């Protein structure tokens, strides 16, 4: 809807511009008078207010303002487009060379551009025009040659990013020449962005021309909007109250610039669509009343039939469907599966931390019997970090880059207990850092000053700041080197034992589950396919997906075994197969699997959503 609205604005802009172009071309036929003609005038003809003879009145030379305005479109458009063409050609060339050549040439060109950016452009413009003379050709040249810097910067950064892309690097490694690489790979990638930028440069050129003309530096022989404003301004239109001599040409400039800007914005929108939403938009609590199901006392965290979807332009797409699991105090659950299986969406949905287009579609999330999905904002805030905290993956961005690690831990502590003063909180933060193996003196370090492992440790310290009962770790070891992975995992295990935390570890790494978890839930296509104690599920997997995952994973016990990868890819949210979601990749699938979705069956090692666990279904398949 929003997108359409923006594009509609683009269409309006285009129509406005086309109208102006037509008016400029057919000016002699449209204008009621010829503003270039010499007429004999009397004092009484000057600054006549609008009338049926002169729709927009007359100016200081008794000329018809409306006709002059129509002719003025010619100069604006010619300077705007011709000037912008020069700017974009010069800027584009410099930008591509500066981005493509990383050596001294690129460097020198960049410094040159930076230098030009510092010069005050309008001052330079008027100085240059004053020096070279005020003809239309000179004005176009000067505006064109001074307007290249923004284009150069933009094209350079775009070229730099294209140059680093794999296929370009590969093409060059394969011996493609510079010219070939530029023509085949770089220029096509840079061109769309350059187009949106050109539109912007056109509007700048039009504004520059009218400003020059207003300052008395336009081509004195040509009628332009800026010149009309200049004549009105210097020849007493304001004093005479003759607004009609100045407001119409001014509005004409606004009209054209607005038209061009609307087109530019629409192009930018299409080429570079930004996600419309952000993390602070109000979230919606589920409103349906909860079903009445008793909760057992030792279960701390229970997710029941949780479904999560995303609002897409095409409608709501379900990403997680009917997921249930529970974690007791002192236990660790591993949520495992390939990426795209819905693991992270499940935990973010459970804690109401979904991206703004995410929605909890149904189910309950109980922490000590209280349902998080139906709680009001204040109650939820109170619960967060006090009772449940999260260790996010890739701690670089999960920590605020411009604040010290210590200040972030202190903030967490003091948010939930205002009675703690800054000094005490700082001492506590130091203790927490030591607890996770970071020297206390690093408390004043910024995230970028720490190694990847240290950042992950400080994220863990942050998660423990308010003494939570439940910690959710989302890919806590991903993107770390193997040694660090092992250390972080040991740390988590130790802390979990010492503080007897309940924990959910989201990971794609079966090794992590094997080492750190008591129970495991395997997810595929947004559903749990198998669930049970790790020791049982990993020794006797009941679901073919679990079995294949385990076979794809190397073990020390059987180093000679061939590792098998699972053919195919997980299904897209928008194209879920009918029947069992794993059936298209499953080596044991039979007809029923492609028709009906298997429910969760009780098995020797827990539960599994597979018809192989149903003797009747298997028998039926045999008899076919």
């Amino acid at each position, binding site marked *: 809807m929003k997108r359409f609205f923006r594009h509609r604005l683009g269409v309006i802009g285009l129509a406005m511009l086309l109208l102006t172009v037509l008016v400029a071309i057919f000016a002699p036929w449209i204008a009621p008078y010829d503003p270039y003609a010499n007429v004999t005038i009397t004092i009484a003809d000057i600054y006549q207010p609008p009338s049926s003879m002169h729709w927009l009145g007359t100016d200081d030379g008794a000329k018809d303002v409306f006709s002059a305005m129509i002719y003025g479109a010619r100069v604006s458009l010619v300077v705007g487009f011709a000037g912008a063409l020069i700017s974009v050609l010069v800027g584009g060339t410099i930008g591509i060379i500066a981005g493509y050549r990383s050596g001294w040439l690129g460097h020198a060109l960049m410094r040159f551009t930076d230098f030009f950016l510092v010069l005050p452009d309008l*001052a330079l413009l008027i100085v240059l025009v004053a020096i070279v003379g005020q003809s239309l050709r000179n004005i176009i040249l000067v505006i064109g040659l001074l307007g290249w810097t923004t284009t150069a910067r933009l094209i350079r950064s775009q070229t730099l990013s294209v140059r680093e892309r794999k296929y370009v690097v590969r093409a060059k490694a394969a011996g493609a020449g510079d010219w070939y690489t530029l023509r085949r790979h770089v220029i096509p990638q840079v061109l769309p962005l350059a187009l949106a930028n050109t539109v912007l440069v056109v509007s700048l050129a039009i504004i520059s021309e*009218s400003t020059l003309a207003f300052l008395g530096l336009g081509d004195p022989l040509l009628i332009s909007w800026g010149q009309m404003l200049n004549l009105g301004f210097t020849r007493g239109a304001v004093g005479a109250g003759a607004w009609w001599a100045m407001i119409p040409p001014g509005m004409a400039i606004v009209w054209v610039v607005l038209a061009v800007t609307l087109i530019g914005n629409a192009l930018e929108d299409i080429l570079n669509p930004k996600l419309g939403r952000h993390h*602070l938009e109000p979230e919606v609590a589920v409103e349906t009343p909860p079903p009445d199901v008793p909760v057992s006392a030792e279960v701390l965290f229970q997710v029941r039939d949780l479904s999560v979807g995303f609002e897409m332009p095409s409608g709501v797409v379900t990403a997680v469907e009917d997921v249930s699991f529970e974690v007791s105090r002192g236990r660790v659950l591993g949520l495992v599966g390939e990426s795209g299986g819905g693991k992270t969406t499940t935990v973010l949905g459970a804690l109401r931390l979904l991206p703004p287009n995410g929605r909890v579609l149904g189910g309950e999330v109980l922490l000590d019997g209280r349902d998080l999905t139906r709680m009001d904002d204040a109650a939820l*805030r109170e619960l967060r970090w006090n009772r449940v905290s999260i260790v996010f993956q890739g701690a670089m961005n999960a920590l*605020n880059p411009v604040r010290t690690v210590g200040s972030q831990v202190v903030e967490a502590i003091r948010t939930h207990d205002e009675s703690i003063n800054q000094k005490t909180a700082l001492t506590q933060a130091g203790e927490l850092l030591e607890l996770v193996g970071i020297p206390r003196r690093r408390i004043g370090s910024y995230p970028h000053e720490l190694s990847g492992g240290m950042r992950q440790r400080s994220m863990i310290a942050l998660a423990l700041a308010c003494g939570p009962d439940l910690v959710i770790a989302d890919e806590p070891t991903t993107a770390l080197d193997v040694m660090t992975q092992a250390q972080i995992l040991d740390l988590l295990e130790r802390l979990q034992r010492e503080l007897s935390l309940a924990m959910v570890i989201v990971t794609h790494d079966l090794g992590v589950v094997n080492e750190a978890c008591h129970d495991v839930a395997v997810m595929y296509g947004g559903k749990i396919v198998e669930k049970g104690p790790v020791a049982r599920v990993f020794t006797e997997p009941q679901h073919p997906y679990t079995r294949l995952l385990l076979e794809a994973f190397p073990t020390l016990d059987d180093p000679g075994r061939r590792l098998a990868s699972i053919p195919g890819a997980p299904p897209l949210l928008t194209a879920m197969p009918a029947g069992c979601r794993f059936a298209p990749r499953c080596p044991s699938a039979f007809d029923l699997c492609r028709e009906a979705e298997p429910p969760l069956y009780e098995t020797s090692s827990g539960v599994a959503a597979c018809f192989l666990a149903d003797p009747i279904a298997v028998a039926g398949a045999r008899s076919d």
Partner: protein
Amino acid sequence: MAASRRRFVTQKVVFAVLTVFAVITFNFFLFRVLPGDPAVGGLRDPRLSPERVEALRERFGVDNPVFLNFDGGNVFESQYFAYLGALSDGDLGTSFAFRDQQVTTLLGQALINTLWLVVPAQIISIVLGVGLGLIAAYRRGTRVDVSALTFSLIMWSLPTFFLGIVLLFVGTTWLDLPAAGRVTIGAQYTDLWDQLADIVSHMILPTATLALVLLGEYMLIMRSSVVEVLGEDYILTARAMGIRRPKILRSHAFRNAMLPIVTLIALNLGFTVSGAIQVETVFSWPGLGHLTVDAVNQRDFPVLQGAFLLLALSVVVANLIVELIYGYLDPRVKEA
């Protein structure tokens, strides 16, 4: 930490000094090489007496080569080094149009007048722009946001001088504000308040024009900057921590979102100069911009050369200040 900070500052200062030198050299060649050269062209100016012409020939060293002297003797005996020498004495020459007025004196007074206009306009537009941009981003898609966007779009499309003219019509017709100048000429003040009121009434229209133009730009950039920051992981962390939204905005989003704004203010100083030139012309404000336009119209090249140099140098210096502030705001840049 301290060492890397020192290195950062040194690096920035060195680059600024190099840029200043480049600006001076550029300024020299701009006026010397192109037609309209104040030394050669200016010497034919009919407004000058023969004695002045002779004095100028002497000062510019017109008989020497332009850049380096290879005719034997002192290599530095050239027009370029004569210019540098005069510049180091603070001598920018004498105006063609205002007889016997030192360019430096003219520029000094004009610079002060321009600052009277630019500083309040900048402060107003930065404070309002940052605040409104923050609100627009937080309230994305609401009426507040749409109004803010529309306002920015219109401000972008309005040439500064035209906005000035519109305000001039409005201000003089309905609000009874003075149309031109910095004070009422020949006014007799009864007391200090009277004088102050006169000065302020002259400032309202030009300051408002400049502030409105800058406001549109700052608001737009602040909005998109905040929207981007609010999509970052650490905002999600802050939310997961149970921090209130307004506090997240204040203590996590604001400083990160300010980084691009600070850079923009630096890059925009040239833009501010452009705005000042136009506003001063419309409101006959006796500042640097007005002086520049007058000098162009009268082909008063020594003043023009001096004014351009001063404008370019103020942008370089202001840029340096902003970059040093940036280094303080963002701990990461010192490492780079």
